[in-house]
């Protein structure tokens, strides 16, 4: 068999060759650097084999930011191509690959790990736990996600990127109309990282239900923990659907079954149903933890408790139910008739009610508060108006008769970007600035931070508001070009300027990290923001056992009670702490999964069989292994605490 032909890129271009060289040089630089500074051992012991939820959280964070830049580069290429009529920057094939990977990377490999980073880092700290329920599974989750992400990312240099949209609608995605291996990459990258997400979902639910500190009843959990809990319940219900859909799609492409084909009884509508039964709840998996972060930030910087805690929790639970009852609005135009459309139109608009409740609760949290404008707070305050615009246009899209006009147009693109960017990306950036001191022991520069927040918020409006107009003027999404006579030029040019703004904003974030590493003061204490919840009761950065003593909780704001209401947060004595041992198995298993996915992408059956056996061997080894973990002695705890806090 001709391997060269198989692995070759079907549509090569100078940009791809340049990227190949860049990737090669980066890999060589990393290998040389690690060897030169003798960091291989450090990397292996402290990061690759770690089971510490905080380190896993940080690895998620770094991956998410890298993927943000990858997806962002795609976005800028797209907007540049569309900036003027009849542009020749990208051809149709490249444009199709770019928007497909942009969507896939941003949702699956940027937004998901971003929320996973915060869930991993914050939830155990916030509930007073020492780690998640299954630390080693947690490491496996991360490595599965990471290897899935890498698998998708190598697609554009080996064999070709997926090009049928991030929704991957069959029959377009089937062999007949998408003959390159791109869609195989899509199927396996999502499958592998999706398994990781499903495992995280189970892990987090068990952690939150079983490992809360004494006194923390469900209704005393901080809002971020609540939001993570609800999101993980959605994960456990939604992700199996994706797993099944991807498997069926894989069977169609590799084994010539006919689930979604145009002939032999294939049903193209079935893919759309499966995809969105997962895909719509997925949106809430992303946005609920983001809402949790906003709740923490807004209450901290208003100096007030969160207004309407119970209705916040209630609205999230209602949203989680409704999220499974609205998927059909993604294909109102598939011809299911007026009755079905009417039902889904109503359930869709109904989601606006609990979401509105949350917006008003945040607004009332500001009421009688003492608002301090830090960078995280600025993001949260910019979020409210921008997200409201995105949200109300969602209600407009929910009116199914009108949706016949919005469907598949730039109006829709504008809507979901106006929801997801303020809703998720702003929240993650706010969370990044907010939790940065907890993670790394120093703060990001506030001046640069605030400037960045303004630039990103203005860019959001510039980039996406014009799309509402071009959509109503008949510009369909995913068109790689248009003629001058359509009149779309002006709108797309403004969008492009917004995209440039984004690039500047994100570059400034990188600069801020660099600047703060060099110049930020290090002795900021454990609680630099005067926060309210348990994660701020630990030293910064957090010792690996989290809490030296088990905290006791009497309300949703345990730390606040301890600081200002004479609550004894740590009434117990020092005791030895049981901690899990590091393990290389999750990383190795991740690598095998990568090889497994790659083998299937190119239908190399022998490696596929070997790697499948390898996966089972790893699982068997783990089952037979006796690893009771280890204890941290009281002396060691005392010494560490003294070093970190300067006190007993």
């Amino acid at each position, binding site marked *: 068999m001709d391997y060269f032909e198989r692995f070759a890129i079907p549509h090569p271009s100078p940009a791809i060759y340049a990227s190949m060289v860049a990737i090669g040089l980066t890999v060589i630089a990393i290998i040389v650097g690690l060897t030169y500074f003798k960091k291989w051992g450090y990397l292996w012991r402290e990061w690759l084999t770690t089971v510490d939820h905080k380190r896993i959280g940080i690895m998620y964070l770094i991956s998410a930011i890298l993927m943000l830049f990858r997806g962002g580069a795609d976005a800028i290429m797209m907007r540049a191509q569309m900036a003027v009529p009849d542009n020749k920057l990208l051809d*149709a094939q490249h444009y*199709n690959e770019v928007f497909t990977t942009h969507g896939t990377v941003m949702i699956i490999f940027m937004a998901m790990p971003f929320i996973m980073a915060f869930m991993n880092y914050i939830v155990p700290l916030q509930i007073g736990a020492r780690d998640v329920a299954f630390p080693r599974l947690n490491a496996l989750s991360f490595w599965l996600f990471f290897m899935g992400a890498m698998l998708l990312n190598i697609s554009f240099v080996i064999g070709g990127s997926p090009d*049928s*949209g991030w929704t991957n*609608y069959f*029959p*377009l995605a089937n062999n007949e*109309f998408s003959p390159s291996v791109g869609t195989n990459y899509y199927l396996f990258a999502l499958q592998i990282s999706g398994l990781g997400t499903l495992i995280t979902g189970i892990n987090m639910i068990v952690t939150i239900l079983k490992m809360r500190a004494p006194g923390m009843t469900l209704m005393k959990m901080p809002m971020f923990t609540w939001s993570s809990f609800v999101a993980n319940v959605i994960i456990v219900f939604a992700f199996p659907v994706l797993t099944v859909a991807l498997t069926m799609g894989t069977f169609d492409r590799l084994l010539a079954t006919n689930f979604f084909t*145009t*002939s032999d009884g*294939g*049903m*193209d509508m079935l893919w759309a149903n499966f995809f969105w039964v997962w895909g719509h709840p997925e949106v809430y998996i992303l946005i609920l933890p983001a809402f949790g972060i906003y709740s923490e930030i807004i209450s901290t910087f*208003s*100096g*007030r*408790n969160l*207004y*309407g805690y119970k209705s916040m929790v209630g609205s999230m639970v209602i949203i989680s139910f409704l999220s499974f009852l609205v998927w059909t609005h993604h294909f109102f*135009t*598939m*011809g*299911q*008739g*007026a009755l079905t*459309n009417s039902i889904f*139109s*109503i359930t869709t*608009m109904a989601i606006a*009610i609990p979401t*509105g*409740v949350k917006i*008003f609760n945040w*607004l*009332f949290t*500001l*009421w009688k508060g*003492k608002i*301090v404008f830090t960078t995280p707070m600025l993001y949260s305050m910019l979020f*409210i*108006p921008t997200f*409201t*615009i995105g949200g109300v*246009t969602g209600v407009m899209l*929910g*009116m199914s*008769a*009108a949706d*016949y*006009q919005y*469907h*598949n147009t730039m109006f829709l693109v504008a809507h979901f970007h106006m929801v997801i960017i303020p809703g998720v990306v702003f929240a993650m950036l706010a969370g990044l600035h907010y939790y940065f001191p907890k993670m790394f022991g120093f703060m990001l520069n506030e001046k640069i931070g605030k400037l960045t927040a303004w630039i990103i918020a203005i860019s959001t409006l510039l980039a996406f508001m014009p799309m509402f*107009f071009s959509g*109503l003027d*008949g510009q*369909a999404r*995913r*068109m790689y*070009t*248009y003629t001058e006579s359509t009149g779309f030029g002006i709108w797309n040019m403004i969008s492009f300027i917004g995209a440039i703004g984004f690039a500047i904003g994100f570059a400034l974030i990188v600069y801020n990290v660099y600047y703060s590493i060099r110049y930020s003061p290090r002795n900021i204490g454990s609680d630099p923001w005067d926060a309210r919840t348990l994660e701020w009761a630990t030293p910064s950065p957090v010792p690996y056992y989290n809490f030296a003593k088990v905290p006791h909780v009497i309300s949703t704001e345990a730390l606040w009670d301890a600081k200002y209401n004479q609550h004894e947060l740590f009434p117990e004595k020092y005791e030895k702490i049981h901690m899990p041992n590091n393990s290389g198995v999750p990383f190795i298993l991740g690598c095998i999964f990568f090889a497994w996915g790659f083998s299937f992408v190119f239908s190399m059956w022998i490696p596929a069989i070997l790697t499948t056996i390898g996966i089972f061997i790893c699982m068997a080894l783990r089952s037979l292994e006796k690893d009771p973990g280890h204890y941290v002695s009281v002396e060691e705890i005392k010494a560490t605490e003294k070093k970190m806090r300067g006190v007993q």
Partner: protein
Amino acid sequence: MKNRWIKLIGFFTIVTMLTGCDPLLVLDPKGPQAQVQAKDIMLSIGIMSFIVLIVFVILAYMLIKFRASKQSPNYKPPHIKGSIMVEVICVGIPVLIVAYLSIISVESNYKVESPPEKYKNEEPLVVYASTSNWKWHFSYPEEDIETVNYLYIPVGRPIEFKLYSYGPITSFWIPQLGGQKYAMADMVNTLHLAADMPGEYMGRNANFNGKGFAENTFNVTAVQQAEYDNWVKEVKETADMLTEEKFNTLLEPGHVGQSTFNGTHLTFLPPPEGEHGGHQHEKAESKDNKSLQNNH
């Protein structure tokens, strides 16, 4: 002096913008179905702008009134749990708005899913609209003619489009006549449209279907009935016969210009309805196409 320049420039910008911008296609309806949709869109924009405005005002008020720099340093914000009254208002008003929009939505839904009320006394003109990568084939069974990449329709008569696809899912969309619907390989969808006035309208496939998607467009010409009859007569006299062979070459992926034929492909390559249907009607016992189509 400076001020006047700014005013002048501002004035000219507004004027050029206003004259330069034609109305947005969707908000410039030329048929009853598009009118229903444009009305809904304008109504919802109105209500939604009102909601956005309220949120902006409350946010601005809170941020101005309660910022730390305006308060005494020893002010301690109170602990406020929440209030039933406030929550009833916060839930109640959105419920009312959503309920109102739901009624509008359901009502319009049934309107756009059925033949236009305005022309209910007219016999609808049935047009089979099918796609293959990246073309549109329009079959007029009544006249026994077929066009590629352009539509000729009479004004004031309801048009019943029968949509299906020889390939990936596409979406049939003529913004000024009404919203879109999917064309798929294993079933036939029905879309009811009508044009109120003569004119040239843009039509396109709105659902991504691969490389040639951007150019997957067609022209719609709406003319008076008499002119339409002339056009049909002319086609019957001048156009070539559509053979199966010719149609098969047309089905091959690629772009072609506009063309016109006598006869339709419906005879040799029937649409996926009735006994030719996909998953839902394997060798349907009942030949009652109407009831089968209603299943969609």
